[in-house]
């Protein structure tokens, strides 16, 4: 069993990844392959992202401190978000966020994925940011945002608020919010929002443009 696992991992990225074989052939059910991931070199990452070397160092030190194994899985994402939003339930939104970060759909977010997304969000152009956000909303990755997907996202955001809000949350508040959103974004009224419609509508809205620049100096 360990040999099979070993050959499977050979096909993946060889540069940084090293997978120790499972501990015991007998304990196949409890196979805990300790994945220890190392990112690519600092220079390469600097070239690929919009961060400087020092910023990458600071980011990686923080990342490695929290996740010594080098990868984040979905549960950790949910825990982190729950710490920031203790009032409500942040797990749904964290789930969508995780899928947006995990571009390779491998089930875990490595440092490269993390840093790419951060680079886009903090230092990217307006178009890149909006594309990333579009991918976040487009849950099934079919290139269109329909009402159900948007309702899921908006409901997840409202869940983070929790129960004790002013004014009190009603059950159809997310739905109304989604309707307002579609009213604004869906130009040709075909029930779905495409990437171009999305980018166009956002560029027309001054509030959105301004708030996209809000987190420029987070790092």
């Amino acid at each position: 069993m360990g040999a099979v696992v070993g050959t499977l991992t050979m096909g993946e990225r060889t540069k940084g990844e090293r997978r120790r074989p499972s501990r015991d052939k007998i304990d196949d059910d409890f196979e805990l392959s300790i994945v220890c991931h190392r990112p690519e070199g600092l220079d390469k990452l600097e070239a690929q992202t919009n961060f400087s070397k020092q910023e990458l160092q600071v980011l990686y030190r923080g990342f490695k401190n929290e996740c010594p194994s080098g990868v984040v899985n979905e549960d950790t994402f949910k825990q982190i978000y729950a710490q920031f939003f203790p009032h409500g339930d942040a797990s749904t939104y964290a789930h969508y966020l995780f899928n947006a970060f995990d571009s390779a759909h491998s089930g875990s977010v490595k440092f490269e994925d993390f840093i790419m997304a951060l680079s886009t969000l903090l230092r990217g152009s307006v178009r890149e940011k909006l594309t990333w956000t579009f991918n976040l909303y487009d849950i099934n990755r079919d290139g269109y945002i329909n009402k159900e997907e948007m309702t899921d996202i908006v409901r997840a955001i409202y869940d983070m608020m929790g129960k004790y809000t002013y004014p009190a949350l009603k059950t159809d508040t997310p739905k109304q919010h989604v309707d307002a959103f579609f009213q604004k974004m869906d130009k040709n009224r075909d029930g779905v929002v495409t990437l171009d419609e999305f980018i166009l509508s956002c560029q027309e809205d001054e509030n959105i443009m301004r708030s996209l620049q809000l987190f420029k100096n987070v790092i």
Partner: protein
Amino acid sequence: MAAGVAAWLPFARAAAIGWMPVANCPMPIAPRDHTKRLDELIILNVSGRRFQTWRTTLDRYPDTLLGSSEKQFFYDEETKEYFFDRDPDSFRSILNFYRTGKLHYPRYECISAYDEELTFFGIIPEIIGDCCYEEYKDRKRENAERLQDDQDDNKDCKLPNMTYRETMWRAFENPHTSTMALVFYYVTGFFIAISVLTNVIETVPCGATPSQKDMPCGERYTVAFFCMDTACVLIFTVEYLMRLFAAPSRYQFMRSVMSIIDVVAIFPYYIGLVMTDNEDVSGAFVTLRVFRVFRIFKFSRHSQGLRILGYTLKSCASELGFLLFSLTMAIIIFATVMFYAEKGSSSTKFTSIPASFWYTIVTMTTLGYGDMVPKTIAGKIFGSICSLSGVLVIALPVPVIVSNFSRIYHQNQRADKRRAQKVQKARLARIRIAQAGSSCTGFLQSKRNDLLNDLLELTGSEEEELLLSKSMSLLESQHHHLLHCLEKTTAHEFMDEQLYEQNCLETTVQSCTSRSPSLSSQDTPIGTCCTRRVKRNSPLPNSSMHLQPSHQHGPLQQLSALHIQCGDKLPRTTRLYPIQVASP
């Protein structure tokens, strides 16, 4: 804030961009990072041993000495390092706390020295990780008990403000406090022994006189024994009444095991006094005398070991129950088998299954009285199987009980798991209180500060604004900004639980006005937050409510006259703002 929160805050803030297209309002301004500098290494010199760490590592816990500006007091300009004249070994675990977020208690460390170090560096001991917390608490309790014992040894004289009742109770509970208590202790012990001896000797046949046959001493010297019994019962009654009088909580005392034993020990005598020499009830009276044997349990006040034994039996209840259950099962099975096996043989003692119970029990416990023996071959075979299995069934749970007893006996005072539960809750509550910065109330409080901040922007000066904003660390202000953005995105605000309940009550009392379904129309989400924001910047002098500032700034007193109005949202805001300010 925890280390995790500090490290992930940039990520959470960046991910907040995902809300922007959904939001309909402009977002609040991000807090400015005044002290923007690249991370640097800090040298901490603790009694000559140099530790180095990043500045941001120490900044994770701003409410400790190393994380706050308090460490500037220890800064040495010449060597450019922070010098602490403390124990370097203990400092290791403290620095690891900053690095990993978990505080560990090293076993070799003395508990009071460790406590002192924690206090010096401003770390509350409740943060100690779960792996080491039990050990820490145990050592602390032992230390406290040792200190208490030392104190008690010096505390022979009565405390001046103890009432007579409290003195008595103390004397009863702890015989070593005064000579009177010791005397009382020994006297009661002596009388318990006398009473038990009397009960025993009462039944021994005394020497027979030539005229009468052998009779027990009790019947021969009735008067003497009656006097003895009376004396003992008098003493016990007096003792019980005194304890009842001195007990701090009489109801608790009456429910305790020892007092029940006392009552059971003396009651038969009084019932015997009351009852006449009626033949019908004399049988019952004799039975009551059996209860006199409970007097021997009064010795448990005098013997620690007896108390522990009783406690062990109580705590091994499940093992004892299992033993009893398995024995019962085996008895029933074998009794049935033996009955049917012996049914055929004539003049058999196994007349019924319950009659066979006696045989089974005697055989399984390997007693083997021999009053009932099987005669048939089948009976003998099953009888031998019964005795073999008896050995097994009894031998299995007994070692568990024995080990339980020895463990408890050695631990002695460690059995209050119930108290540990309460301590756990109190501990978590203490941690939460100490880290109130990241809780809901912290955010709501900062919103109030922001409100004052905005007011100051209009009339106050730059310094006052900075004063208010510096009260929070940068991390907290960034976190609050994030929560504020979420509020703006969803066009709802966070609220205290109690205020929420209040609001619910008020909205159900009022009939549904056009306010509540205001979100149904499309442009009111924009209206709700944006008009309020717009209106906030231009305060009108004649609105109906005012803001009460919570701290004593000079110019702020003038602001109490300033009014805020939010257009037609009057009823709601009148409720919102004063409640927010009033909450501590």
